[in-house]
């Protein structure tokens, strides 16, 4: 029977944790990833304001350690599925920022040929099964992905790709606003009942759009009881500190993987920007944002590496920042210069094969497999 656990840890003893034992190269890589996620969003906001990005856009500034810390705690072929604030997850999973940016620009070189947009980042080779524009829609799908992985290991006894089957966990992210959608509760019941190795990771930034968590969620201060109701193991900790996230999440995920059962994580975090790019933010004071920015994940990790561990010099850090800025600038240029989708793309990828009678543009417009060339290499 799973037990309910609550763990929190102050950042000041991070030097004794699991993350601190990792090689310099790994930790420096994490810092670079965090910088990339932040810089990417800054350029995204700028492009959105210049009307180069259409649709709706939700940026990840402030929450970076949540996605990166949890994704770095698992294997690269563990399935990941998330909600609409998904640029960070895509980058953390290894998507090239240029494909991510081009997607938001609606260009044919985007990760989904400019068909998904900001809320639907897919990267199958990196086991990212999309952002989702309907709050909580991904939660039963995440259970299904974990169920499939377990089926592979338990029933087929071999990988679907022909390789060896192995124990996996699925990371399924949701915001605190998704806590009250029925789909989550159906999924958690199923996961608890069938012991499905899905880990629900609540990126609890305190607001469901403009509604503070205590105004919309019952027992907001004790989410563990929601997990307990479904017999799912629970863990809560601070999501602002990359090393904290890794130290807490890695052992938790390892055990769930080994024992093939579900988990539920409450990651306390904060988004610096509004819910979307068009949020007047009447629901919070500026001081609240500043309080969280004092615990910024990039500052915390860089401070540790520069001053406590002394594995990184100021100069190296400056070079790293410069390098990241150049990479994101190049991504924006790539997105800008990429071609617009052809009209024939309207009818590609709706079904596996084009159905006759489907296209009013006529049968000659469609070219079988058009636009799928990128799929192979990406």
């Amino acid at each position: 029977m799973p037990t309910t656990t609550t763990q929190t840890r102050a950042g000041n003893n991070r030097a004794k944790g699991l993350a601190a034992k990792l090689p310099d190269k790994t930790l420096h890589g994490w810092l670079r990833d965090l910088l990339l996620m932040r810089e990417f969003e800054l350029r995204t906001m700028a492009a959105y304001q210049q009307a180069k990005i259409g649709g709706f856009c939700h940026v990840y500034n402030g929450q970076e350690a949540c996605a990166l810390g949890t994704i770095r705690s698992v294997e690269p072929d563990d399935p990941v599925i998330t909600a609409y604030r998904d640029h960070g997850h895509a980058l953390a999973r290894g998507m090239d920022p240029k494909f991510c940016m081009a997607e938001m620009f609606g260009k044919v070189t985007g990760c989904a040929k400019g068909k998904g947009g900001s809320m639907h980042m897919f990267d199958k080779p990196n086991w990212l099964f999309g952002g989702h524009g309907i709050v909580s829609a991904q939660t039963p799908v995440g259970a299904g992905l974990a169920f499939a992985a377990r089926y592979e290991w338990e029933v087929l006894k071999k990988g679907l790709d022909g390789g060896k089957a192995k124990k996996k966990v699925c990371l399924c992210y949701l915001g605190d606003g998704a806590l009250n959608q029925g789909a989550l509760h159906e999924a958690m019941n199923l996961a608890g009942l069938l012991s499905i190795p899905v880990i629900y990771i609540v990126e609890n930034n305190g607001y469901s759009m403009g509604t503070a968590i205590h105004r919309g969620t019952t027992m907001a201060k004790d989410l563990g009881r929601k997990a307990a109701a479904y017999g799912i193991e629970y863990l809560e900790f601070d999501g602002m500190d990359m090393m904290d996230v890794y130290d807490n999440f890695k052992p938790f995920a390892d055990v769930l993987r080994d024992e093939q059962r579900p988990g539920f994580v409450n990651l306390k975090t904060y988004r610096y920007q509004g819910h979307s790019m068009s949020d007047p933010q009447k629901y919070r004071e500026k001081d609240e944002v500043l309080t969280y920015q004092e615990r910024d994940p990039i500052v915390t990790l860089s401070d540790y590496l520069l001053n406590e561990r002394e594995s990184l010099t100021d100069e190296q850090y400056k070079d790293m920042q410069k390098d990241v800025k150049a990479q994101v600038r190049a991504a924006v240029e790539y997105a800008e210069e990429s071609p617009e989708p052809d009209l024939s793309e309207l009818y590609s990828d709706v079904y596996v094969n084009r159905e006759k009678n489907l296209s009013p543009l006529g049968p000659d417009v469609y070219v079988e497999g058009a636009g799928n060339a990128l799929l192979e290499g990406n």
Partner: protein
Amino acid sequence: MAELTLVQAINLALTQEMESDERVLILGEDVGKNGGVFRVTEGLQQRFGEDRVVDTPLAESGIMGSAIGLAMGGLRPIAEIQFEGFLGPAYDQLTNHAARYRTRSRGAVTIPLTVRVPVGGGIHAPELHSDSPEVIYAHTPGLKVVMPSNPYDAKGLLISAIRDPDPVVYFEPKRIYRAFRQEVPEDEYTVEIGKARIVEEGSDLTLITWGATTLQCIEAMDNLPEDLSVELIDLRTIYPYDLDTIVESVNKTGRCVIACEAPKTGSMAAEIATAIQEHCFLRLQAPIQRVTGFDTVMPYYKLEMQYLPDAKRIGEGVMACAGY
């Protein structure tokens, strides 16, 4: 060749597909131990085990969502939803997600999911258990929708649906689950999705239908004047429907009646009538007739048979069109 009912034909298709492909699994409420609410999955859990025939909680959004995840993960899940009305709680998962992943991911993520759903009236069940919502799912790009009218097609269409790389909603007309038997080959075979069946050839008028109403149409044709030659088309696939067969037939006959159980306004009958006037306008000799259910909530059983198009009403529609 064995004579099977529709239920037995579906059960046989499920058995054979599960035997030949280990990626195929079934999930739904009471599909295992109880063999399904209409006993369609009878004996499958005993045969294939609890890992492959999974009894789920009564939670349609969870069933549909996790089935999508299973398909995404590379398996071939078959989700059973007990009645067409229960698609409501699963609607978000089916139409907002299953139908759209291929487009949203430029073909990288595909959903080879089959959703089996008993459909339609005629068993004295109340609304939500007797509705005909096929047009809602036909109106959802990314989904395919099929509805057999006989045991032979039931087996072949289901095998096609399971093997199809895209999500297919497989509607089972519950009224004819055990209405009659038909010879069904033991061997595996497929009925192509998107192909209608000409039940009977004719030259004066085209009668188009699908699902259980096919039987009412056959009955209606038995009572028509002998010199009236009616071509009966069973659509089989609701979407993408077989426009070629329809156009060819109506261009030949110049007259058309469409019969189905769904409410009239915005039904598949409306869609087909529109397509016919787009493609056969100069050949039409009469307005297209629709013999359908009414624009109301499916009535409780005392009025059910008045709601459903029967042989008499279909016959009247045919005569009105033929005599125009």
